């Protein structure tokens, strides 16, 4: 096939992604992708290089819709020593993400229009789209509903008190009923406080041996079961954040079989690490929900494979080094995730690339309301006229994680020294190459 000029839309292509294999929800094909003015202008094999265009070599690489993270703690405002919107979205771009959903547990929390507007403003120069998950309750304290309609009017489509679950079933029911009227989705951090107490790790053989207070799997499962009942009663959609136990996943499987409007995500650390990692009391392995035993890790993998779990979400949770130097029970939970998620999925999961990309791009985009069906530009498809949010990665390249080399302001990656297969080469956000050859351009 000879070289042909791409279809013209009034301006010359500024970026050409050449030689790669495109994978989106529509399938897989060998084509080049031309981009101008933030949009895809050509998708064809053998596109010519127009004068002045930036050529991104994609030979041997996959060209996919940018990844979408449903669960990112950007820490700004309030904990800028741990992360900022600038550093967090740079890490996102380096990880192949073109959109992240910022969790509301900032200081102040994202429970008011002013707080949400502030984040959008801070994110105006970010290297990835920053969507906001609003708080369900004022101050994430679980007592009074946050002004959900006011937040929804600003474009907030997901609500959660993440970091904590809404403990009151009665209040959660009201929130679901109210949110249904707004067309938004409530996302639950499933953790029953009366069962979790001040658990520092998964309650089981390792916590018993190490003498650390345990957080039982039950704390998650009880709230998953409760919220499935609430979804059934209210008809409102519920998204389950970071599911980590086999029985939780089985409950969601049954709920889906009953046709209930539930979706679920799982974090990379819950399919790649076990509670045995806590044996050396290194708080870099402390996370909430905690790392679980191998049987739960296996159940997460099955859930990702059979469609029970809809999305891989990082729960990227930066913490400044002095907090991870505390004793295990006193250290805050959380680990970095944005730059390692894709490599972990390719390395650890026995899934095809289209399946992994569904879990990391178009399915989370739909849950977050960022896909074209909701008027957004994330998650593909890769076609002429679409917003140019793309991730180009080499699925066979291997690299070794060095926490000191990550773009986050924090260093709390549990994967230091681990070799992963699958490395992001270029990321294009709204037409701009924000990562080229593995380096952030700004």
């Amino acid at each position, binding site marked *: 096939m000879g070289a042909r000029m791409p279809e013209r839309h009034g301006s010359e292509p500024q970026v050409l992604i050449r030689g790669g294999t495109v994978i989106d929800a529509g399938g897989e094909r060998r084509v080049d992708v031309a981009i101008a003015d933030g949009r895809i202008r050509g998708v064809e094999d053998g596109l010519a290089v127009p004068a002045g265009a930036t050529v991104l070599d994609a030979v041997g690489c996959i060209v996919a819709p940018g990844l979408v993270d449903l669960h990112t703690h950007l820490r700004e405002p309030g904990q800028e020593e741990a992360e900022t919107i600038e550093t967090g979205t740079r890490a996102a771009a380096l990880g192949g993400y073109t959109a992240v959903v910022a969790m509301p547990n900032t200081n102040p929390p994202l429970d008011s229009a002013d707080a949400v507007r502030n984040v959008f403003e801070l994110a105006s120069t970010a290297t990835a789209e920053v969507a906001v998950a609003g708080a369900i309750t004022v101050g994430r304290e679980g007592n009074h509903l946050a002004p959900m309609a006011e937040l929804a009017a600003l474009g907030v489509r997901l609500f959660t008190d993440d970091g904590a679950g809404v403990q009151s079933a009665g209040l959660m029911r009201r929130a679901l009923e109210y949110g249904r009227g707004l067309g938004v989705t409530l996302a639950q951090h499933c953790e029953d406080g009366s069962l979790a107490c001040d658990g520092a790790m998964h309650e089981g053989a390792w916590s*018993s041996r190490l003498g650390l207070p345990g957080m039982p799997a039950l704390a998650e499962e009880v709230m998953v079961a409760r919220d499935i009942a609430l979804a059934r009663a209210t008809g409102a959609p519920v998204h389950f954040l970071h599911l980590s136990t086999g029985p939780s996943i089985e409950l969601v499987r049954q709920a889906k079989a009953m046709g209930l409007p539930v979706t679920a995500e799982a974090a990379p650390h819950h399919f790649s690490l076990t509670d045995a990692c806590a044996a050396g009391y290194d708080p870099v392995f402390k996370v909430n929900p905690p790392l679980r035993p191998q049987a739960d890790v296996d159940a997460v993998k099955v859930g990702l494979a059979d469609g029970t779990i809809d999305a891989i979400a990082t729960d990227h949770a930066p913490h400044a080094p002095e907090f991870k130097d505390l*004793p*295990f029970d006193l250290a805050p939970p959380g680990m970095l995730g944005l730059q390692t998620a894709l490599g972990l999925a390719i390395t650890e999961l026995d899934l095809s690339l289209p399946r992994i990309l569904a879990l990391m791009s178009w399915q989370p985009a739909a849950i977050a309301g960022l896909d074209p069906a909701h008027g957004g530009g994330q998650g593909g498809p890769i076609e002429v006229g679409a917003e140019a949010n793309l991730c180009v990665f080499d699925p066979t390249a291997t690299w070794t994680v060095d926490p000191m080399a990550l773009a986050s302001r924090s260093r709390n990656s549990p994967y230091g020294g681990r070799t992963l297969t699958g490395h992001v080469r270029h990321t294009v956000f709204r037409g701009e190459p924000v990562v080229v050859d593995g380096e952030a351009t700004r």
Partner: protein
Amino acid sequence: MSRFPHHLLAIDDLGSDGIGEVLRVADSFVEVGHRANPKVPALRGRTVATLFFEDSTRTRVSFETAAKRLSADVLSFAAGSSSVKKGESLRDTVETIEAMGIDAIIIRHPSSGAPVGVARWVTSSSVINAGDGWHEHPTQALLDLYTVRQALGGGDEGVHRFKSLQVVIVGDVRHSRVARSQVAAYAALGAEVTLVAPPTLLPPSIDGWPIVAVSHDLEKELPDADVVSLLRLQSERGSGEFVPSLREYTAGFGLTGRRAAMLKPETLILHPGPMVRGVEIASEVADLPAAHITGQVSNGVAVRMAVLFLMLGQGQLDGGPDA
């Protein structure tokens, strides 16, 4: 004989050989303790620091006495008087102390695993765990073993007699660092350990624990026991969350006079202290000749001398107990 470990964080660091060596060396130091001048120059010029983030009179005094009898210099840091209260992190505190030229840091901390973190941060000091959260209190278990071995006749024959010894550990195993060290220590010498407690005071899982049984019926376990080791029940555990009341706990799991009468005459009763008379042990039982509670305290100094000596004395007996 393998090299004595650089740190003592948990009983498993020692293994049965290491435990045996501590007990043998402690024999010499018990003898030193009986001298008019109970002091040897073994660790002259060495400095040890006690770093206690939790109130403890007996353990700190026992370690400091042990170090002084070995002629080591002792620096004592208590969380209340150091800069820890000003917000200095544990890591900064440890690095500052080590910079003073310390050979060993003896740490007590309410967080399980804190000494493990300290051992990661230090560059050359030895770290000795003097009790961390619910995790371990290895020297307490060593002095229990020493006391039992003494009662069994002492010497290497005493160590041999731990094999198949029936040890019953009663009480709040779940929240007990002493219990975790005891289980590891007794098992390392071949004793058969049974844990006795209501299910709420047992660890959530005993997978991998080197024990032979778990029981919720103390009276059933007493007649065959060679050693009954009682654990303290902190009063907040008996306030309704773990057991309905201290009274109900005592009714089911207290070593009362009636229950003590079910023991074989030679059975030893141990308690790591501080004991709560009338809860886990009846006052008249604590005062029986079978109860080796004060013996445990005096052995504690000798056992801790042995640990410090083996750890810091580079295994040389010059200037040691035989000098």
